[in-house]
Each structure stands twice: as structure tokens, then as C-alpha cells.
């Protein structure tokens, strides 16, 4: 038993388990306190409502792992929504072509940011902040007003519901889950994915080990751009509009989710399923508040902050305990040091 526990603590997925556990506690508290919280649809709604955020978080996690950051995600998402709406409203292009166009646009924009950052050795924070300004502004240039999407195919997609028996989910939610799976596989089982982690561990070492640092960095930002545009499509399926203020502040939500899920902003550490749980935790906090139903605007903010705080401190505390425990257990293991070459002098 004790051994099991030690194993769990030593496992690299430990902080993920902690996050999942805390999520479960939060959800359990919801069920205990409010009737109706138990309905499966409440849980499924977390995925429907947060489809876009999940996808965007995946993208931003890539940039965080290489010790970068991408603040432009929310703005790219808004731009994608806007361009899509504009294309559907003002050109006769088929939906597929429009979707392809905006996806390419977002990806290329991400890659361009990555190129500038890597080529000129600039700070990702600043360049992507500029990217955020740029996309937001551009969105406003296209239209300051909202543009509604009336294209029947898109509208049909938006209201399509996949019945799961216990409830339903939207197409966006399914795309989000697929993104999670693909990203987890890419990071865990491909050369590219591992290079991403290596760069996060140490960019200079990666270069000295002969890894394609420049190319990988550009690709990471391209992926972030890609995810932002995919997230934009999911968002567009929820909103059915293009609007300048879509996804405002989403970058912070995404970063917070990713970090709560175990990503280190110093790079080199990140876990995609963790990022998903990070999003769900933020989602469940909001659900909580809407079930509570009496908080005024400011109390909402304070309670969200307080819950976030409790969560983060708890996480820090548990991780601290872990490092203490593991150093203790390593001493116990070392009763018999794994290797002990007989010193040459002793033989003589």
C-alpha cells in the first residue's frame, strides 16, 4: 500500500492526478449543494461551452512548453470568426473553401509570428502581444459591427447535436476532444513533439544536440495559430457571428488552464490531458456560480478569484509535499546504492 502510494507520488503524472482529484472534489461539492448539478448534461455542457477554449489551450500549451507564449490566440480566434462571417456573407464561396481559407490564414499568421521571434531572437511575449493588437485591429477594420452568419450549412452544423444517450454534445466539443488526442500523441510519440520538449528544457542544449530548433519553433507557433483558427471555427459554431470582441481575454484563460493542468511557464513541462482538466476546472467554477444564482457581478469575480486561489495554493502545497516525500523515499531506496564500482585501489 505504502509502496503504491510512493509510486504514485514519484510518477510524473502526479500533478495531473492531483488536478483531476481537485476537479472531482469541486464537482462533488456542486452535486452535494445544488440539485440539478448531477444531470449528465451539466457535465457535457462543460465540453460544449468550452470547446473553443480547449482547442486554443492545446495550441498555447505547445508554445508554453518551448518556454514561449502566444498572447495572440484570442485575437486570432476573433479574426477567424470575423473573416469567416465576412466570406460567407459577401462571397459565394462554398463553406469548405471558406473554412480552408481561414485555417490557412490563422496558421500562416502563427508561423509568421514564430518566424519573427526565432529569426530575430525577439521576445515571444512582445511579438505575440503585437500580434494580438494586430488581429484585433484588423478584425475591427473588416467590420466594427457584428456580422451574422446565415449560411445554412454552417447554421445546421452549429445546431447539430450528437446524442450520447445521457445527453448531447456539439460538433465543436467533438473536435475539441479529437484535438486533445492528436496533440497528446504528437507530443508524446513523434520526433517533433519530443523536440518541442527538448527546446523547452534548454534551447541552447537542443541546438548543440543538433535538433532543428528554428524549424521547430516556427512550427510550434504555426500550431498555435492553427489551434486558434480551429478554436475560432468552434467558437463560430457557438456564436454564429463575427465580432471584434469575441474571445477577449481568452489568452489569459488559456494560459491559466494550461498552467493549472501542470504546464510550467519556464518551459519543458506540459501535459495535454492536464490542460483539458484545467479548462474544465475553470468551467466548473463558472457553472458553480451560475447555479448559485445570487452573486452580484463583483462577488462573482471575487469568488472566481478565491476558488482559483484555493486551487492554486493547494496544488503548490501538494507538490511541495511530494518533493519532500520523494527525497525521503529515494534515501530509503538507496540503502543499497544502485551502482558502486569497486575502487581500483581497493583491489591491490
Amino acid at each position, binding site marked *: 500500500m505504502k509502496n503504491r502510494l510512493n509510486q504514485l507520488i514519484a510518477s510524473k503524472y502526479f500533478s495531473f492526478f492531483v488536478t483531476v482529484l481537485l476537479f472531482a472534489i469541486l464537482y462533488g461539492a456542486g452535486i452535494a449543494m445544488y440539485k440539478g448539478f448531477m444531470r449528465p448534461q451539466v457535465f457535457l455542457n462543460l465540453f460544449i461551452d468550452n470547446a473553443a477554449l480547449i482547442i486554443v489551450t492545446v495550441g498555447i500549451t505547445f508554445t508554453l512548453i518551448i518556454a514561449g507564449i502566444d498572447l495572440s490566440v484570442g485575437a486570432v480566434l476573433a479574426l477567424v470568426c470575423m473573416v469567416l462571417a465576412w466570406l460567407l456573407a459577401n462571397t459565394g464561396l462554398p463553406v469548405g473553401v471558406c473554412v480552408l481559407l481561414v485555417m490557412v490564414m490563422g496558421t500562416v499568421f502563427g508561423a509568421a509570428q514564430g518566424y519573427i521571434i526565432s529569426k530575430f531572437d525577439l521576445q515571444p511575449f512582445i511579438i505575440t502581444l503585437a500580434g494580438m493588437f494586430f488581429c484585433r485591429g484588423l478584425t475591427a477594420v473588416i467590420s466594427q459591427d457584428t456580422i451574422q452568419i446565415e449560411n445554412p450549412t454552417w447554421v445546421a452544423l452549429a445546431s447539430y447535436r450528437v446524442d450520447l444517450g445521457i445527453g448531447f454534445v456539439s460538433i465543436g466539443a467533438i473536435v475539441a476532444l479529437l484535438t486533445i488526442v492528436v496533440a497528446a500523441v504528437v507530443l508524446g510519440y513523434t520526433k517533433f513533439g519530443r523536440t518541442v520538449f527538448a527546446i523547452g528544457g534548454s534551447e541552447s542544449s537542443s541546438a548543440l544536440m*543538433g535538433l532543428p530548433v528554428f524549424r521547430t519553433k516556427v512550427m510550434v507557433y504555426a500550431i498555435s495559430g492553427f489551434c486558434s483558427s480551429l478554436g475560432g471555427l468552434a467558437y463560430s459554431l457557438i456564436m454564429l457571428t463575427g465580432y471584434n470582441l469575441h474571445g477577449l481575454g481568452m489568452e489569459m484563460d488559456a494560459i491559466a488552464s494550461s498552467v493549472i493542468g501542470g504546464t510550467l511557464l519556464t518551459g*519543458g513541462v506540459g501535459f495535454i490531458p492536464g490542460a483539458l482538466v484545467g479548462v474544465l476546472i475553470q468551467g466548473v467554477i463558472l457553472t458553480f456560480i451560475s447555479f448559485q444564482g445570487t452573486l452580484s457581478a463583483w462577488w462573482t469575480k471575487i469568488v472566481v478569484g478565491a476558488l482559483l486561489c484555493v486551487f492554486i495554493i493547494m496544488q503548490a502545497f501538494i507538490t511541495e509535499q511530494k518533493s519532500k516525500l520523494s527525497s525521503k523515499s529515494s534515501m530509503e531506496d538507496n540503502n543499497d546504492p544502485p*551502482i558502486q564500482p569497486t575502487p581500483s585501489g581497493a583491489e591491490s
Partner: protein
Amino acid sequence: MAQALLEMRYIDKVFPGVKALSNVNFTLHAGEIHSLMGENGAGKSTLVKVLTGVYQRDGGTIVMNGKLISPKTPKEAQECGISTVYQEVNLCSNLTVAENIFIGREPKKHGFIDWKTINQRSEQLLAKLDVHIDVTKTLDNYSVALQQMIAIARAVDVDAKILILDEPTSSLNEEETKHLFKIMRQLQRQGMGIVFISHFLDQIYEICDHVTVLRNGELVGAYEISKLPRLELIAKMVGKDLSAVKDMDKFAEKSTPSEEVFLDAKDIGAVGKLREVDVTIHKGEVIGFAGLLGSGRTETAELLFGIEQIHKGSIRINGKKINLKNPMDAMKEKIGFCPEDRKRSGIIGDLSVRENIILAMQAKDGIMHHIPYEEQCKIADDCIKLLKIKVSDREQLVKNLSGGNQQKVIIARWLATQPNLLILDEPTRGIDVGTKTEIQKMAISLAKQRGMSVVFISSEMDEMVRTCTKLVVMRDRRKVAELTGEDISSDGVMKAIAGGAA
């Protein structure tokens, strides 16, 4: 003679303020182990980095197998067939050991990385170096020495024509070095050309065929090792004539410690770090901590300096019981500490030499008692002169110094605080022969002339035997013996360690 495998001609490299290489030629043949020698800062690492595309050369040509090559990145160099272990371990601490060995060339199954094979093959590879560790743990779980071994494992496994090892043995013990040499010889037989950089003359004479000597970024010459006596090699490195070099090795008398006890640690231990050690340090004594890697020498030193806290036992300084909660507490008791991992816990890379030197002094004085700039300069200049630190000027960034000179800066930092006890953890690691003896002499003279106590930790038995008046022998994170006077000898230490094992 057959066509050379590698020919570097008229290589120039200029850094702002330093001409690191000028007109250097270097030739390497297949099946040859070739050493690069020179003092700290002579330009050995720079030559390697120019070859592997880390730095862009300012002039000269590189010919490999008769073809002009010009690698712009390490990746291109690797593609040309050059595999390198750099001086400072360059691996990723967040990845597992196995991954560090295989990253960039992972075996695949169905298009995805085959983790099982990676782990298995890593274990096999490390086993050849007689390292048996859990390869699925991340690299930061292991000591510098092990990381060095892992880097070597990675480099030798790459299918390359040229293997470059920049001071791979600086933190290895004899046994580990032996394993490395075995592998090097094997690769040599396969026709690989190997560049081997080290400050250990014994090792050079044991394994190398040729040696190229650099001094101050200039080529002194290339020699066949069997035709070059040691002293002559040293003379060429330091640029003095033979007689002067002979004097250098004349060793000073050891210090004679006074009866007065400065520090007395009784049965100290820390959970997860150290089991049980007791040491008594007299004034004016040079005391050595001897033991194998991982035996707990560093941990003991860290407890004495308040970096980790003791969980049992007690520490008395000048007879008074002291609770060391952090380094500042130890500094107030006039203790100084040069850590062994200078990249991680020693230098502040982006600060200048001056700032690095006065840092501890300033920390001790407190934030409000700012040392005036002029005084800082004076202290820094004094230290640079005293320790012969090779810098272009005192405002040079420490990270741009050669490894050995960085080490000296950290020693200078602590000397500036005028401590009563100076703990030197592996101070001679990666330091050239000349300087090494200088540091040993310095330790002795500090004890003799200033009555300072010195704790000297080193993995080189010779230098411990030469400098220390008392040896604390450790094994398995506890003290197993204490040797004084006549008992201090390599054999004695080895016996003590073996005895502890029995």
C-alpha cells in the same frame, strides 16, 4: 601519409575584446586520438565550437575528407559526421536519461516513437560504460558526473567519423574514465578520429597519439605524444622555459593547524541527504573530504554552509552552538563556499566579472551598504591579479569566460569576504595543470599565512594527499574514517573506503 580526415587551416575567431583564435591549424587523421592542450582560456573549446558550427569563424577553412565543409549549425556538423560532447554538459534536464541519448534519432514503430526500444538500448549503452541507473527518470535526478556519462553515451552511439570530447573526464572518477577509454580505443580501431581535450596529463599520455598545443589563441605546434616529455609539454602550454616549469611543481610544506577548534559538527544528518557525519575543523587546517561520487561530500559541505538544514546533530562554531538556517547565517560566521556545479549554483552568467566577485561581499554587507564603484573595481582588479584570471577587462560577462576562469572568479568572490573557513567543492575541476597547483598552493598558503581553515573536496586523490592535513573519508553518505599525518595516502583512502564497504 594518408589523406587527413580533418584539416582546419588558418582559423580565426574574434569575440568582442578577445582574439580567441588566430591562424590556428589543426589536422586529424582517421584512427587517431588527438589531444588539444592549453591553459584555461587558450581557445580549445572555441576551436571545437568553430568546427561544429556553434560559432561562425572569422577566417580560415575546414576540409573534411578532402572536401571543403562549412557547418553553420551543430546540426549541419552532425550531418557531416562530427559528434561532440561539449565542455559544459549540454543535455535537457527535463527529459529522461534515455531520451537525452536518443533525441533527434529516435527509433520508430508504426511511425511513432518506440519508447521500449529507446529505454532498452539506453540501458545497454550505459551498461557499456558501467552505469546502471533508471533511464526513465529525468536527467535532473542525476549528478554532473552521471550527466557527463550520459552525454558520452549519446555521442559514441552516433554513427560518426569524428568524435570530439571536450573535457569529458573532468568530473569522472578513475573507474569511469577507464570505461570511457575502453570505448574510445574500440572506436579508434573502427577508424574514427577522436579529439580529446583534458587537463589530466596522465590521461593524455595514456590514450592519445598526437597533441596540438594552443596558447592564447595561437598555435604552438602539433607533436607526437611519445616524443614529447611531460615537462616539455607543460612548458609549451604555459610558454615558459623548462627550468621555470620544474620549479612550479616544487610543493610548499603543508600547513600546521593550531589546536584551536573553529567548527565542530557532531553527528549531523539531513533527511534524504546525509546519514551521519561528524567533523572537527581546526584553525589553519586544510581538511579534505574524500570519497567516491555520490558519497555525500557535497551534502556535508552544504549542511555546513546552511544551504540545507540539519535535522539531527549540532554544529558549534568557536564553541558556540549555531543554527545555520541559510547561507547568510554561515557567512556571518565567516564561512565561504565554492559550489561544485558552477554553471548552476556558481556564476551569475549575465553579470560582469566585477559584479560576480563583489556579490558575496555585498550580500554580507547588506543592501544598504553599497560598496562604492571605485572600491568594487579595486577589489575586482586585485582578485584578477591575485588569481591570474584571464579576462579582457573586469566588465566582461562571466558567461563568456573559459570554464577554468569562471571557477577562479567564484573563488575570488569568497576570498573577497575574507572568511575564516573556506569550503572548496571540486575547485580544480576543469582547471589546467598550472592553475591546479596554484589553487592547491593557495589553499595551503591561506591556511598557513592567514590562519584560515579550508575544506578541500576533490575527486583527485593525489591533490588531496598533497594538500590536506586531515582527510574525512565518506562512503554511502556517512563518515567511515578519518585519516591524519602518515595515514594520508591514496592507498589509505582506498582501504578506508573498501573497509567501509566490507
